[in-house]
């Protein structure tokens, strides 16, 4: 019922992107993502899409894994595409009995391709390293300490609470509870959520005391073992160059 975040499930594969320095990977991929979402032209967007597919292939991540997570963005942009194609003002073209707007199809397609191409890059970026390496890279990139720590703690506790809530639901279902669309169900699920907060809060207290007793000061000390070499600089420059190139095309 509740899915685990499994983004780094394939972090131990071996590919060029798995060997890419995390800091260089984050900076260059984010540049590329920001560049892709701002492409004004459909042809350039298709080129960026091809490049994203190429990067994805380089990462050797299983396609079924990526498709599972691309479902959301695809559904979102396809519904926008459909609405725009049907309702966009301007020149119409007819498709069997339905009249579609040419401009609507164009801008819907542009949006969809940009969205999927950009989201697809999240997986070669984050899915090719363990999440703790991502966190360490963010820390070394001088993202404010308090935000990096919140990301790290929140990520860890998602697994704990997914399990916790799952146990609570199993207990409820074993007593005959079924989640339906009625007031009673909402009241029960509300109390279950409330219980999750009480448990999480009490756990937070204990964890914080335990951390204090181990010398926690709020400033984590990370042992940095990332090394940038010529190959990392080359790959990062290549990706950033492509990101700029997308906006120089006419």
């Amino acid at each position: 019922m509740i899915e685990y975040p499994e983004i780094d499930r394939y972090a131990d594969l071996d590919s060029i992107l798995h060997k890419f320095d995390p800091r260089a990977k984050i900076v260059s991929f984010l540049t590329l993502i920001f560049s892709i979402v701002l492409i004004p032209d459909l042809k350039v967007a298709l080129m960026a899409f091809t490049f994203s597919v190429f990067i994805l292939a380089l990462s050797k991540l299983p396609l079924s894994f990526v498709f599972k997570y691309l479902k959301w963005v695809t559904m979102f942009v396809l519904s926008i595409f459909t609405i725009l194609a049907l309702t966009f003002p301007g020149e119409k073209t007819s498709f069997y009995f339905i009249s579609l707007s040419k401009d609507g199809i164009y801008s819907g397609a542009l949006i969809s391709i940009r969205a999927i191409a950009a989201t697809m890059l999240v997986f070669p970026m984050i899915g090719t390293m363990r999440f703790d390496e991502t966190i360490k890279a963010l820390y070394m990139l001088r993202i404010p300490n308090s935000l990096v720590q919140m990301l790290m703690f929140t990520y860890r506790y998602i697994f704990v609470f997914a399990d916790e809530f799952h146990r609570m639901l199993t207990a409820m279902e074993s007593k005959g509870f079924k989640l339906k669309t009625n007031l009673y169900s909402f009241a029960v699920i509300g109390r279950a959520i409330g219980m999750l907060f009480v448990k999480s809060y009490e756990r937070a207290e204990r964890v914080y005391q335990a951390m204090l007793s181990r010398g926690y000061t709020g400033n984590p000390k990370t042992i940095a073992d990332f090394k940038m070499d010529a190959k990392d600089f080359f790959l990062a420059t290549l990706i950033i160059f492509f990101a700029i190139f997308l906006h120089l095309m006419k």
Partner: protein
Amino acid sequence: MVHISDGILSFQVLAFGWIVTLLLIALTLWWSKRKGSIAEKIPKLSVVTAAFFVASLIHIPVGPTSVHLILNGLVGIMLGTLSYPAIFIGLILQAFLFGHGGVTVIGINAMDMGIPALIAYSIFRIRQSPLFGAIAGGVAVTLAVLLTAAVLLTLGESYVWVVRALIIYHIPIIVIESLIAASVVAFLSKVKPELLGGGK
């Protein structure tokens, strides 16, 4: 889902979202630093953020389909001013762990969900009762939907139908969210009242 995905908004809107969000994060963190060390709050804040993240993954059946809870009103009720950074962190994790929402739109999505959370907090502070919990929860989702609608309308009049579909889709969610907010508030005020009203 009131998240906008990548690839839709213009540069100006994306930049505006990031600027507002970064300013509000700096402001809310500074505000809570005034009342004591932030280092002490981070583990607690993160644990509650994770609980919200998990709660928003629950599928609630609505007729033949199912919806996810947004819970931004409850985040506001429980975390107070710190709800803004909590929502920001939640959105980053959703974008990077599940590909939900988008990377470039984190700023604008945080604004659309975080500002209503802050408003829900100020509504709940008037009176800490299940009724005001329900109002705060419902208002937070309604405002989030309206802000998202306003953001989509910056793209031009051709998005009117997208906005209508968005609003219609969210009407049942608004009702469910306020019922669940009332139930959570009623439960917490009996079991652990110190969790309500922005915490200590």
